[in-house]
């Protein structure tokens, strides 16, 4: 632990030296809240806690994780919008409250783009289509053939109506001209239990949490929604590779209410970038299956808007 502190302090010192512009702001002078739209214990919560700890070490103030789960993440995002834009309230932003919920719930009390400063991109998790061994298929073509032979006979599980798994599954059925039977769950845990118990023969679920089952042979990965193959599943093709235009990224980032002073944004972004460059953070992200690609603040902002444009028709189609 001492070594970590030392490392973090060194990094912080280097960061301060290399960027004299940072001297302009005294932020943070008191503890900073990081809102998390998930209950404690999940991998996104752990990302916030891990980075919060590194930020506390490098910026000399406590970064406190505050879990505000609920209403598809909109409870946390609404709270973020209401907060002062002084850099003392941040949120671990992600796909659902910013790109899915505003379209699903027209009464969402914020504008995902105009009301926020999307500051730092953290990384993304991809979705995969997994089949149970009992289904007897080993690749996507096999599943499509089976589904075409017997429309509506095969079930797929998702972690809920309007979840990204459900939205992508609906899109998959559209582009592959198949019909699967939807079994919605309340979250991924109960779904994976039923999947393993042979209740549902296929699931659309985030890749990382299913890797142990893949290794065990109880889940057969058919395709992933990334733009290129994942290092954790190098033998599994992407949907695009197989000719189906399906890409889905559950991204994570740091966002704040709109209007945070430029110098604070710069300081936060560089502190986060340094933290994510630490070998132990990288290693941890790898085990959690978080795919990291550096993006500047501007690029991240544009990315969030582009994602919103990409998801809008998909969400509408799935919720019809």
């Amino acid at each position, binding site marked *: 632990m001492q070594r970590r502190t030392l490392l973090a302090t060194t990094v912080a010192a280097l960061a301060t030296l290399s960027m004299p512009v940072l001297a302009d702001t005294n932020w943070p002078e008191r503890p900073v809240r990081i809102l998390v739209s998930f209950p*404690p*214990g999940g991998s996104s919560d*752990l990302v916030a806690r891990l980075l919060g700890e590194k930020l506390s070490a490098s910026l000399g103030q406590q970064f406190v994780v505050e879990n505000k789960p609920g209403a598809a993440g909109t409870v946390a995002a609404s709270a973020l919008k209401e907060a002062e834009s002084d850099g003392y309230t941040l949120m671990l932003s992600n796909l659902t409250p910013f790109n899915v919920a505003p379209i699903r719930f027209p*009464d969402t009390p914020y504008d995902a783009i105009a009301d926020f400063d999307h500051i730092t991109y953290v990384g993304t998790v991809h979705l995969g289509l997994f089949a149970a061994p009992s289904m007897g298929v080993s690749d996507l073509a096999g599943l499509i053939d089976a589904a075409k032979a017997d429309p509506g006979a095969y079930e797929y599980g998702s972690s809920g109506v309007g979840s990204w798994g459900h939205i992508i599954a609906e899109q998959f059925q559209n582009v592959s001209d198949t019909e699967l039977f939807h079994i919605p769950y309340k979250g991924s845990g109960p779904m994976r*239990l039923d999947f393993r118990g042979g209740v549902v023969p296929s699931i659309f679920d985030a890749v990382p949490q299913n890797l142990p089952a893949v290794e065990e042979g109880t889940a057969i990965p058919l395709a992933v929604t990334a733009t290129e193959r994942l290092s954790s599943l190098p033998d599994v093709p992407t949907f695009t590779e197989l000719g189906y235009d399906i890409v889905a990224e559950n991204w994570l980032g740091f966002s704040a209410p709109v209007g945070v002073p430029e110098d604070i944004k710069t300081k936060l972004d560089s502190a986060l970038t340094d933290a994510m460059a630490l070998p132990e953070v990288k290693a941890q992200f790898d085990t959690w299956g978080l795919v990291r690609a550096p993006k500047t603040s501007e690029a991240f902002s544009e990315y969030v808007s582009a994602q919103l444009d990409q998801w809008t028709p998909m969400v509408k189609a799935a919720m019809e």
Partner: protein
Amino acid sequence: MEMFANLSLGLATAATMTNLTYCFVGVFLGTFIGVLPGVGPLAAVAMLLPISFYLEPSTALVMLAGVYYGAEYGGSIASILLNIPGTPSSSVTCIDGYPMAQQGRAGVALFATSVASFFGAIFGVIVMVLLSPRLAEFALLFQPAEYFSVMVLGLIAASIVSSSGVLRGLMMVCLGILLGTIGVDVNSGDTRFTGGIAELRDGVSLVVVAMGLFGISEVMISLRGATQSYAGQTLRGRDIYPSWGEWRRSFLPALRGSTIGAFFGTLPGTGQTVASFVGYALEKRVSRNKDNFGKGAIEGVVVPEAANNAAAQTAFIPTLTLGIPGSTTMALMLGALMIHGITPGPRLISDHPDLFWGLVVSFLFGNLFLLVLNIPLIGLWVRLLRVPHYYLYPTVIMMICVGVYGISNSLTDVWATLAFGVIGYVLRLFRFEPAPMLIGFVLGPMMEEYFRRAMLLSRGDPLVFLERPGSAALLGIGVLVLCATAFPVKKILTNLIARKGTA
């Protein structure tokens, strides 16, 4: 032989100085946090999760597990002394524990709780050691149809535990189920009964309902003076040992409770609550002392506590052997492993046998610590009751508000808790008990979810509940329990009529 190898490996991990210390720290903090009204095992584990980042994975898990069952135990203290259960399962303990406290027998109730918890936990650990891998497979045999039938059984049990009559019990269960329908409907994704309030999209929070119905309403009742104040009674703090007769009467109930608990604990998500209620309901049927249930029968404390703690231990089986969390608290435990780069999954036991068996053995130590820690503390807890009302009750209300706010960071929840306090007060004025309502609230939505999922899977054929043997058996038990309840009611009625006739 393999079993002994496992145990000795576990002992080697659990009996290190560090792990023993953190095990003790865990149960100690767990007990004290769990005593606070409004703070259950989930909140206690969440609070201490960050500490575990600095520990070795096995130490972290041992400590968090200690916090978990320590808080479970601490919750029963508040249930017995103040009628404020921290979890739905400890609301069963209230049914007889609180009357015992009112009769000045709080010490005995707490002692019985300690011993029964210990008994149940050890029973659960033995089941884990003997059957872990096989039990995980068994849990997987449970499909939506079986889960539905378990819920039905749980709700039947809940409606007959009420001491104010089955009809009132059923009404409260139904009210709870109705309350549970608020929020997003799983199958359509549409919201129901939220009145357009975004916070209600995920339903009313359990802590809000439990703390309002029990905690706040209890304070209001005591202000009104409707229940006899017991704070003024001279409590014989040292007189905590049950009589020989009570010891003897408690053994079989403890065994039955533990068996039921160990069984239901392996079912992810539902175990503890159903176990306590079913255990209590069964005991109320078979006990010779059934007439005293609800009026301070020691068996009424022993059974749910034994069941609840046996379930708390066996709940680790599906979580650790499959790597899929059965409840939010278990998700936190797995989170503690993930932060150390250990991916929970089916290979956890084979890849990290020291971790798994170390944890199992630490349960033995932890429960022993709990016993040793708590028996001397009983006197202290009982003395809490001597605190004058004008200090005690404002403190309780404040702690409930802080606890509720601390869990959700939402002021709306605090107001909702106070509102449920008023509802609970009115219900209790008319002799409706809150415990069946709470379980209806918890199990109702799950029952609906599993019912509809089973119906989706069978494409709308309701016979699925009878065709699957497990489901049919559970429903059969439910029907039997209902019949068994109906008959004594008849007997009482005929007695009454006969008495009126002779009078």
